[in-house]
Structure formats: structure tokens, C-alpha cells
């Protein structure tokens, strides 16, 4: 008797090959049999009308802190994600000496918007080394974790405060290499570094003080294990990004390692930059280098309130002047002035096309709560006034704490992004899940991939899309026995409705330790998620008590 059978589903097995009808039998956490099965099982899942796929793998997350109080990294699992990679961008929670905890919390607060209170109330600091950290998170895992070790953390451990001032000495370099080996032996899937991130004092994070020799020496250690190097490149600068691609290609060829850079974005007139990066990657891949650009599926939304002067207002000199130079009371006074209102509304009229797209995103009064999520144009109609007047009125009613959203402002050229995502040399990732928690929701990129780029844009087949977020990720990151529906492989399985799978609307929720809040999105169309052979989530009943998640060490060739 099997532990579990998934019956009547259409298998999209992660290989990219055409879907086929079959049942899957699972026992001892692994896929035992695929075919037409009539044998008994303790539990049966009817997948009639649904697609059965390998669990999705998210290669770029910052769930490091959340993992300490939520082993399911909610809501990742309900979106079909069964494995996450935390520790990106040079920041991991280990190795970490007690004296550097405040520094780390500051960096997480600055870069990932994880509040100090969440650490104070959600984290028991009972580890220092990477092996101790792995043991710590293993206690309560629903989701699988393939952790990166952060270059900044290696430097802090070995160099102390000097990590934030200079490159490593030869003696320190030897110790950095030894420490990286210890982390890789304990289960780190690779190392992350950054050329971009700033710490809580707006100074470069420790890894940015490393020289090329140091990165080369650490890449040599990664080469001993065949593990991956992740970098955050200067993504806002096309020419420097191309130079980073060259650097990664050299390290990949010299040390025999896979490398990945994130994020690569398509902006309104930035397609030339993307084309340059991809052209250079094609050249390097042809020589045998492994350089994977990570491209996110979701567009970039921009949000603002009247409290902080957004550059969206820069084409309106009177408005921008009020917001830029005024105190909170000055701003309230200026926009409350009935005599000034016509002048302000007139100046804003030139950007009416933008205001018409705005959505009311967040308010603090209960009286306006029901308007959240509505387009400003509809609220204006309801109130029988103009759009700009409505924006001003809502801001005043909310004491400037009305937040507005301009959706799809960047990375939003559906055709171009679709072509990029479908490119065999592009790695779908860069979700940043678990980061920027108070700015926007980072969840549901996999559902969005299928709804937008399979159903709407027809940029790729469902089989290709599933391969991109399952087998390809497992292959790039060296995660053995994951990413395929294959007999003998670990039973990480996502069952979804191909006609409805999507990301739900963004909303604000107070579920972060220390009474903190964050933006999240619910999943749409994800029916059942199986991790390690047990049902971890069902659409109808929610999360189960299953704790079959594992820390996945990278494969060593």
C-alpha cells in the first residue's frame, strides 16, 4: 500500500516534454510509481482537470528571518513553491558572532525592510556558526531550504569591523576560504555577494570592500564543491552590468562553477540594455561559461503618499515644491487651502493619464477602508468629484497616510519580458520573496508567470514555463532529485488549475512578530501542495501540520 496517490491528473513533469495523463504513487517521501495505478493508498488526491507538476523552486528569496518563526514561509507554499533559496545578496543569518547581531539586524532592516522588532520578538539567537544555523532551522520546516551563505557574513566573522573598511589580508583570505568550506560542508548551496547593497548607515555592505583577488579565492573554494556564486550586479547601469557578466564568465570558466546575477529588468526604453546583456551572455555561454541572468516575472509597481515627495510629482513644480520643502503641517496646510486648490488641480491635469491608473492602496481610517483596492477614478465618480481632488481629499482625510499605487510602471512590456523569460539562457527568479515587506508583495510570481506569459501573452507553453521554475532551477542550483516528476525523485508536487492559476490581489496584513505588517498576495488556482511526500497545503482546508521540509545541500560533482 502506498502512502499517497495523486489520481487522474495531467502531468507536466518538469522536463519540458508534452503533458500526459497519469497517476503518481508516493511512499517514504519519494515518487514510487507513475502510470495508470489501481493499487491502494492511505490517502488519495483527485487531480481531475488539474495539472500535476513538480513543486516550484524560488531561487532568490530573503526568507532568512521569517524561517525562524514560520517554517512554511507563508504564503510561499500556497503559491506552489516547495523549495526556497534564502541568503541572497551577500546577507545570510550565519555565520554570525553574537557581537555582530545588531549589525546584521540593521542591514536586514535597511535592505529587506525587516523591522528590528521582528527580530527582537521573533528570533531566539541560539546559533553562531553555519552548521548551528542549519540545525536551528531544521527543527520546524514545512518548506525545503537550499541556503546560500552571504559573503558579507563571512567577512564580518573573520575580519570584524575591518570588513567594513578594507580588503582582506592574505592571512584573512585563508581564513575566509576555510570558513566558506565549513559552510558548504554544512549545507550551503553556494555563496552570494553584492556590488550594490548599502548597510543601515548607507555605507557599502561588507562584501563591497572585497577586491577581485578575494572573490577569485572564494570562487576557487566554490569550485572545489561545484557550487554556485550569486551576485547583485549594478542592474541600473547597462555597461557595468555587461562588465559583471564578463567577470562571472571568467570565474565560471576558471573554477568550473555556475554563476547567476540578479535582477535583469526591462524598462520602458531600457530594452537596449537587456539586449546588450543577453548578447554578451550568449558569447560567454558559447565558450562553456555558466552565467545565468535572473529575470522576474512580475512588473514593478510604484507607490507613494503625500508625506514623502515622490519623483512622480517632479513634473508638477508647485506640488513638488510643497512636498519637497514642507513639513507635514505645511503640506496639510497647502493642500487644505481652498483658494490654492484650483491652481493645484490645474497643474496636475497635464498628468491625468497617470492619475486615471492610480489605485488607493492603503489607508489608516476605518471609514475609508472599503475604498482600498479601488481605482481613484472610480472613487472620484462615487464622490462626484475629480480624480485629483479625490487624491488630495483622501490624503487629507488620512493625515497624509493615504498610499497610492501606480501599477506596472516598470518591467511591464509584456512582449519583451515574455521573450526574455522564454529565452533558454534566462533563469526565472529574482522574486525577492520575504524582502521589501512594507513596500510591496513579492509572492505569486510563479502563478503570474503562467497567467500572464502562458495564458495571456502565449510567450511559452505551459510545459516550458513549468520546466523554467522546476527542473531548470534544480539543475542550475545543483539540487539533486528535485524538479522532475520521476520515479525515485523526492515527492515535491504542486497541483494546480492551468486555467485559473494566478496571483491574487495585494493586501496589507499584520502578521510579522512585534506587531509588524507586510504586503502579501494569496494564491489563485493552486489546489494541493505536497512536500516530501506529505500534503503541506490544500486550497480548501489550508496548511496542514506537515513538517517534511529539508535543508538541501547542493550537489558536489
Amino acid at each position: 500500500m502506498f502512502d499517497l496517490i495523486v489520481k487522474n491528473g495531467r502531468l507536466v513533469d518538469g522536463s519540458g516534454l508534452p503533458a500526459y495523463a497519469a497517476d503518481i504513487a508516493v511512499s517514504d517521501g519519494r515518487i514510487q510509481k507513475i502510470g495508470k495505478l489501481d493499487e491502494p493508498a492511505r490517502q488519495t488526491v483527485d487531480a481531475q482537470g488539474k495539472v500535476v507538476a513538480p513543486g516550484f523552486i524560488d531561487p532568490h528569496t530573503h526568507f532568512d528571518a521569517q524561517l525562524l518563526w514560520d517554517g512554511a514561509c507563508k504564503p510561499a507554499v500556497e503559491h506552489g513553491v516547495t523549495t526556497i533559496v534564502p541568503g541572497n545578496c551577500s546577507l545570510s543569518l550565519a555565520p554570525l558572532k553574537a557581537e555582530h547581531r545588531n549589525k546584521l539586524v540593521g542591514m536586514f532592516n535597511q535592505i529587506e525592510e525587516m523591522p528590528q522588532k521582528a527580530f527582537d520578538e521573533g528570533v531566539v539567537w541560539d546559533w553562531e556558526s553555519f552548521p548551528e544555523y542549519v540545525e536551528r532551522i531544521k527543527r520546524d520546516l514545512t518548506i525545503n531550504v537550499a541556503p546560500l551563505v552571504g559573503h558579507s557574513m563571512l567577512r564580518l566573522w573573520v575580519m570584524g569591523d575591518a570588513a567594513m573598511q578594507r580588503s582582506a589580508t592574505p592571512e584573512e583570505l585563508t581564513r575566509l576560504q576555510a570558513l566558506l568550506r565549513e559552510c558548504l560542508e554544512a549545507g550551503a548551496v553556494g555563496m552570494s555577494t553584492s556590488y550594490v547593497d548599502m548597510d543601515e548607515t548607507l555605507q557599502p555592505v561588507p562584501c563591497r570592500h572585497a577586491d577581485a583577488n578575494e572573490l577569485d579565492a572564494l570562487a576557487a573554494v566554490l569550485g572545489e564543491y561545484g557550487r554556485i556564486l550569486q551576485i547583485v550586479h549594478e542592474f541600473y547601469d547597462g555597461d557595468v552590468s555587461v562588465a559583471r557578466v564578463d567577470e562571472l564568465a571568467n570565474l565560471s570558466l576558471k573554477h568550473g562553477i555556475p554563476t547567476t546575477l540578479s535582477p535583469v529588468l526591462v524598462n520602458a526604453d531600457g530594452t537596449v540594455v537587456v539586449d546588450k546583456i543577453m548578447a554578451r551572455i550568449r558569447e560567454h555561454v558559447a565558450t562553456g561559461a555558466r552565467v545565468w541572468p535572473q529575470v522576474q516575472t512580475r512588473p514593478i509597481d510604484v507607490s507613494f503618499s503625500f508625506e514623502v515627495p515622490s519623483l512622480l510629482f517632479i513634473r508638477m513644480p508647485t506640488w513638488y515644491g510643497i512636498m519637497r520643502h514642507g513639513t507635514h503641517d505645511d503640506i496639510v496646510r497647502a493642500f487644505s487651502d481652498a483658494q490654492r486648490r484650483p491652481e493645484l488641480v490645474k497643474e496636475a491635469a497635464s498628468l491625468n493619464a497617470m492619475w486615471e491608473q492610480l489605485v488607493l492602496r492603503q489607508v489608516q481610517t476605518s471609514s475609508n477602508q472599503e475604498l482600498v483596492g479601488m481605482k481613484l477614478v472610480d472613487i472620484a465618480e462615487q464622490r462626484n468629484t475629480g480624480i485629483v481632488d479625490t487624491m488630495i481629499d483622501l490624503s487629507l482625510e488620512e493625515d497624509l497616510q493615504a498610499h497610492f499605487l501606480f501599477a506596472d510602471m516598470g518591467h511591464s512590456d509584456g512582449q519583451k519580458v515574455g521573450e526574455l523569460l522564454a529565452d533558454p539562457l534566462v533563469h526565472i527568479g529574482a522574486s525577492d520573496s520575504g524582502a521589501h515587506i512594507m513596500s510591496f508583495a513579492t509572492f505569486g510570481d510563479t502563478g503570474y508567470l503562467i497567467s500572464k506569459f502562458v495564458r495571456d501573452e502565449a510567450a511559452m507553453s505551459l510545459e516550458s514555463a513549468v520546466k523554467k521554475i522546476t527542473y531548470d532551477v534544480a539543475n542550475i542550483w545543483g539540487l539533486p532529485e528535485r524538479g522532475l516528476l520521476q520515479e525515485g525523485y523526492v515527492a515535491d508536487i504542486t497541483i494546480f488549475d492551468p486555467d485559473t492559476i494566478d496571483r491574487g490581489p495585494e493586501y496589507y496584513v499584520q502578521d510579522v512578530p512585534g506587531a509588524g505588517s507586510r504586503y502579501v498576495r494569496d494564491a489563485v488556482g493552486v489546489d494541493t501542495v505536497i512536500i516530501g511526500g506529505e500534503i503541506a497545503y490544500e486550497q480548501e482546508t489550508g496548511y496542514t501540520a506537515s513538517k517534511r521540509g529539508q535543508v538541501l545541500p547542493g550537489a558536489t560533482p
Partner: protein
Amino acid sequence: MAATIAKVRIAAAHEGDAELIVTVAYDGGGSSEVPLDRHASDALLRSCEASGLEELIGQSWQQVRDALSVSYNRYR
């Protein structure tokens, strides 16, 4: 070196804020795009005594460099 600002546009930054993208054109015919956050943009407008984006066109690259420094060093 007489590189000057040739174009200015507003774009969406990775972190969900609006940013200013300044195109600097060089004598030799090349150009670079430089993203400025809110603080750097404020500094650029102030140092160029500009009240609107159009007034930034033709300004020296050095103004852009100095504006970036203002943002970068604002907590020092």
C-alpha cells in the same frame, strides 16, 4: 570633458519608488544613463537652480556626480 545632460526621464526603481534617469551625452558621441534617487534628484535640481526637468538639459555631468555624492553621503 564636456559631457552634458541630454535627456531626463522618470522610471520605476527596483524597490518600488520612482527614480530619475539622466542620460549624459559625451563629446565623442557616446552616452550613459545614470539613475538618481529622490535625494540625488533633489540635489541636482537645487544645484542647477532648476524648477523643472527641462531645465536640467545641457547641465554638466559634474552636477550629476555631485548630486550622487549628496545622496550617498547623506548620513555621514
